[in-house]
């Protein structure tokens, strides 16, 4: 045909460089994807080597530039409160709010504005539509029949040099039902700092101290308070009446709740929060030469506070107060043989490079490597889970940078002397941090938000850890393009004219299949909402019900929207289906890498090989028998590992032993994820699961 000849002549004149490169990549897609995947894995393993030392980026912070003036007098305040709390506890007249009354009395004596904050304990519910919306109107709709409530105590010191527009928040969680010694100590520490700050003259930001009643969990008390802080609720009078008559306890309390002639139930606010510090005294860690400070930073959906905040705490703790700073790591990995082997190889390589050129100094000892890898793994695990590691997570939802740190003394603190020296150092640390944050002129913005820690003073920033993921994900579009183009080429050569016409729209059928599976996945992900409404059901039963319902829906969708694509053969070529599937996975992974990088990275490790390897069992590849067998085994292994519940159970089995693992674990994990609004849940159900089902489709293709 002349028309086609014309077309063929025109572009052949001189193809552009980018076209040449693209066509080269596409034609060597297999080699390219193998190289890229291996490079991606190596880049991931190199993360501890590539980590940089942290530094304080914001000049205004000036940590440690002023001497702390937190003194023995403040410590004695703390000891007094601790003693009072233990005595109240011993007297045994616990009406539930004794401790709160004690704290509020003390705060009022310091001269602070004080109030009680009453909140309902609310069990986390599954809200299908509330994954990303920062809902502002949900506070109004709570008409809980639940009468169990907790009582937070809040004190505000107005800054002598501030305009009342900014505030720093201190949080000490404690269990008000039974105050143990370390809870009492953290309350004492909090109060001593609070009273100290009530006397200083340099404050430019208001100080809020929240003694969070954590009998229903540390997170819920803080998040309830934050919600009320940010969403003023205007109760109509009837609403309040209903609340009051509901629990007489509260009514009694209200009569008593006049302190020095002021009502302490009125919610008061300071300005916007510049930073929040959650601190508590943890368990005793014996056999350690120094007191330990453990930092928790991961908030919901892998969000981290600004790195400067961690740096300030770390700097002051290590270089001023002599703590040993710890961040979470997967203990089982530190001693694992293969990680140490990799570490030794890297150490050897580093030495080799140093011999070649003394300036190349990227060596790292194998112990450091294992340590760093374990820390990065824990960092990644907690980010990927999308569940905050402490009550600081509640602050991040309101764009407030917050961390939790817990002090672990090395001796039991029954001894008065030990206690006071410990409180002195803890108090000076917190004072120093507050002083730094107090210097800030703007929000934290200078340093990183997207990073992973490999050690308390080492981090990997987004620019570095993205490389591994990008290399892993790069083969996907290339392979999709090559499958698509190859298929089109074969489609054009051997068929009659009618097929040519709609040749470029041939993928529509495959897209329809993919769309149908995605639709199914959406239904399957909403299913737990309905299942959780059924009362008295065990987790194993729920899992089976879930699976059964999902399979039914899949069957129904097949009937409505057309039978499996391979039943009337020739309609959908498996190459096209694979190309469309890979394209959809690429979009999903790309999106997820922005929402929560760690999830995308872990997901990519599972999903990318599965997508690339999969091919119909009945279509053998040409070549040696061993290649065929390898392809078959790869396919089967990938499909087993790629199934999210199977992967979960396998992981549980390897970490905790296979005896205790039941099917019910699947339901429990799913419940856990949606209760925390984790985007990982969405990823698993809207990207990973459909991809797995499509892979099964392709495997079974005739």
């Amino acid at each position, binding site marked *: *045909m*002349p*028309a086609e000849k*014309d*077309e063929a002549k025109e572009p052949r004149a001189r193809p552009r460089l980018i076209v040449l490169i693209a066509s080269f990549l596409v034609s060597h897609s297999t080699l390219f994807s193998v190289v890229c995947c291996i490079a991606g894995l190596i880049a991931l393993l190199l993360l501890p080597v590539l980590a940089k030392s942290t530094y304080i980026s914001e000049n205004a912070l000036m940590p440690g530039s002023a001497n702390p003036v937190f003194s023995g007098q403040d410590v004695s305040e703390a000891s007094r409160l601790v003693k009072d709390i233990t005595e109240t506890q011993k007297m045994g007249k616990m009406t539930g709010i004794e401790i709160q009354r004690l704290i509020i009395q003390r705060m009022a004596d310091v001269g602070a504005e004080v109030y009680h904050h009453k909140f309902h304990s609310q069990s986390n519910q599954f809200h299908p*539509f*509330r994954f*990303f*919306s*920062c809902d502002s109107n949900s506070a109004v709709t709570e008409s809980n029949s639940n009468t169990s409530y907790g009582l937070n105590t809040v004190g505000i010191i107005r800054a002598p040099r501030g305009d009342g527009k900014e505030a720093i928040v201190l949080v000490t969680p404690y269990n008000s039902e039974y105050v143990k010694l370390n809870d009492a100590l953290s309350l004492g520490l909090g109060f001593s700092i609070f009273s100290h700050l009530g006397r200083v003259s340099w404050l430019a930001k208001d100080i809020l101290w929240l003694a969070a009643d954590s009998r229903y969990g540390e997170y819920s008390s803080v998040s309830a308070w934050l919600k009320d802080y940010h969403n003023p609720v205007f109760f109509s009078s009837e609403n309040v009446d209903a609340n009051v008559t509901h629990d007489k306890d509260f009514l009694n309390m209200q009569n008593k709740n006049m302190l020095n002639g002021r009502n302490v139930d009125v919610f008061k606010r300071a300005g916007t929060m510049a930073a929040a510090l959650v601190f508590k005294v943890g368990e005793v860690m014996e056999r350690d030469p120094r007191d330990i400070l453990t930092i928790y930073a991961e908030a919901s959906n892998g*969000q981290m506070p600004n790195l400067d905040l961690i740096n300030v705490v770390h700097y002051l703790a290590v270089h001023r107060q002599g703590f040993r700073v710890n961040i979470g790591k997967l203990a089982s990995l530190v001693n694992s043989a293969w990680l140490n082997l990799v570490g030794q190889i890297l150490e050897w390589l580093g030495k080799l490079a140093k011999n070649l050129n003394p300036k190349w100094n990227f060596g790292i000892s194998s112990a450091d490597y294992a340590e760093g890898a374990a820390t990065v793994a824990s960092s990644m695990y907690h980010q990927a889970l999308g569940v905050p590691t402490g009550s600081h997570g509640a602050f991040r939802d309101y*764009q407030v940078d917050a961390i939790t740190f817990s002090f672990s003394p090395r001796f039991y603190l029954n001894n008065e002397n030990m206690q006071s020296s410990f409180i002195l150092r803890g108090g000076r640390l917190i004072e120093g941090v507050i002083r730094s944050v107090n210097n800030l002129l703007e*929000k934290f913005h200078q340093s990183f*938000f*997207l990073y992973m820690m490999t050690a308390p003073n080492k981090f990997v920033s987004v620019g570095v850890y993205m490389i591994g993921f990008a290399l892993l994900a790069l083969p996907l579009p290339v392979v999709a393009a090559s499958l*698509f183009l190859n298929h089109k080429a074969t489609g054009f050569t051997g068929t009659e*004219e*009618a097929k040519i*016409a*709609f*040749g*470029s*729209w041939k*993928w529509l059928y495959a*897209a329809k299949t993919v769309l149908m599976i995605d639709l199914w996945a959406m239904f399957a992900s909403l299913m737990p909402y309905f299942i959780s409404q059924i009362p008295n059901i065990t987790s194993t039963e729920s899992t089976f019900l879930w699976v059964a319902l999902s399979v039914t829906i899949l069957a129904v969708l097949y009937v409505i929207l057309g039978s499996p694509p391979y039943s009337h053969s020739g309609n959908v070529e498996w190459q096209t289906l694979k*190309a*469309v599937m890979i*394209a*959809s996975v*690429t*979009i999903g992974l*790309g*999106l997820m890498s*922005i*929402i929560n990088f760690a999830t995308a990275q872990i997901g990519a490790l599972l999903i990318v090989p599965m997508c690339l390897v999969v091919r119909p069992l009945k279509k053998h590849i040409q070549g040696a028998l061993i290649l065929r067998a390898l392809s078959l085994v790869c396919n089967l292994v990938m499909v087993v590992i790629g199934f999210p519940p199977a992967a979960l159970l396998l992981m549980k089995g390897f970490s905790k032993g296979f005896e205790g693992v039941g099917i019910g674990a699947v339901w429990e994990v799913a419940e856990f994820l949606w209760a925390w609004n984790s985007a990982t849940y969405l990823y698993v159900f809207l990207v990973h699961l459909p991809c797995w089902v499509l892979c099964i489709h392709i495997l079974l293709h005739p």
Partner: protein
Amino acid sequence: MALTRRRYWAMAVGSVILRLLFICFSEDLNLGFRPEVATPVTSLRRLAEGYWLKNSSMSPYSGSMYHGSPLLLPVLGPLTVNRVKGLPAHLFCSLIFVIVDFVTAMLIRATGQKLMSTYHRSLQLLNLSCVQETAGYTHVGDLASLIFLWNPFTIITCAGSSTSPIDNLMIVLSIYGACSGLSSLAAFGWVVSTHLSLYPAILVIPVILLLGYGPDAPPSKLFLLKKSNESGGSCPKDKTCSEQKSKEETHIRNFCWRPVLFFIMWSLIWSSYILFLSFISLKEFGGLSEMVKKTHGFILNVEDLSPNIGVFWYFFAEVFEFFRSFFLIVFHINILFMLVPLVIRLRHRPCFLAFVYIAIMSMLKSYPSVGDSALYLGLLGLFANELAEMRFSFFLLCGYVGISLLSPVMHNLWIWRGTGNANFYFATGIAYASLQTVLIVESVSTILKHDRMLRNKLAT
């Protein structure tokens, strides 16, 4: 490819039911607050505000809240006030929009049928009906209306309390009127849509061409070629026969002035009528000059720089005040520059020309929303037969899906989490604009290729 009638109606009704479902959950989805769905010009929330202001005898335009037409206030305003307890706030308006969407789809369907029949006839005249038969025969009207009804963009716009379904209806109305030779209807649609959102003013060119030449046909050169072939080759002696034929053909492609004059006359009538109504409703609040300043002036001046999926806000947030007016002219003239070359190249296909104009318009608008894309993606279905060999179709689909998912995520990262910044969100806006560019370029080149293919077929 042909759909059975029953299946078509089942799918159409299905899409309506889906819309109703979405409307039930619209409170939870919070679509009306998304910058992708509701722009300052089309937001129903702002309309409700304007209605309230007007009812308390203030100018609806005071406070820079409302920027729509004053005529929408008495139509939709009372419905925004009526509420049913337990149901979403803008229930009645949303129901109206469902009906509007459905009517739009039916008009697209009718347009498609008109286009099909004329195109079929002209191919028969060229003895090229074999092209259509081998290519497979698609009912473009059904296809286009289904694409329009099931497009997620349309559904989101419909549920998201934005007035753009009405703008879309008016544009489609004018195209339908022009296709079927109804000058008054075409004029009405054109005048109202221009009044509502200004940009459809450029559609006057395709509408006049449609009225003058009739719906899309292969280029007129082909008819001349055919004539010369026949007169030169097959039957040189049979003069009467060829004369008769040539008369018929020239009759087809002649520009007839009568409907165009009618169109101009009707346009004048409708526009004066609309201006009169606006004047009445704004008599106490500054009259027509106030209206022009606050609606069309607002569109042209790009006063609201809140982020949207277009490319204007970012630039005008950065640009120095001193250069502002210069760049305003540059940005707006961009659209006008493209009009003439496209007319010259595509004058034989006025309907396709209208599609290209609408696509360009929704790309270079000052306040674009996904509702505009919904319209041109629906109209794209009208040319399914000609665009069968379009390249990059799969890439475009992936791009549209990817961008429409990425854009809210980036917005969330910037506004709610605070870990991203404006560049993140604007990057998706740029990517979206480039995707639309690729779509326009590819579709135009495919149409031109299709014409070339026809010529080659005729020559052999």
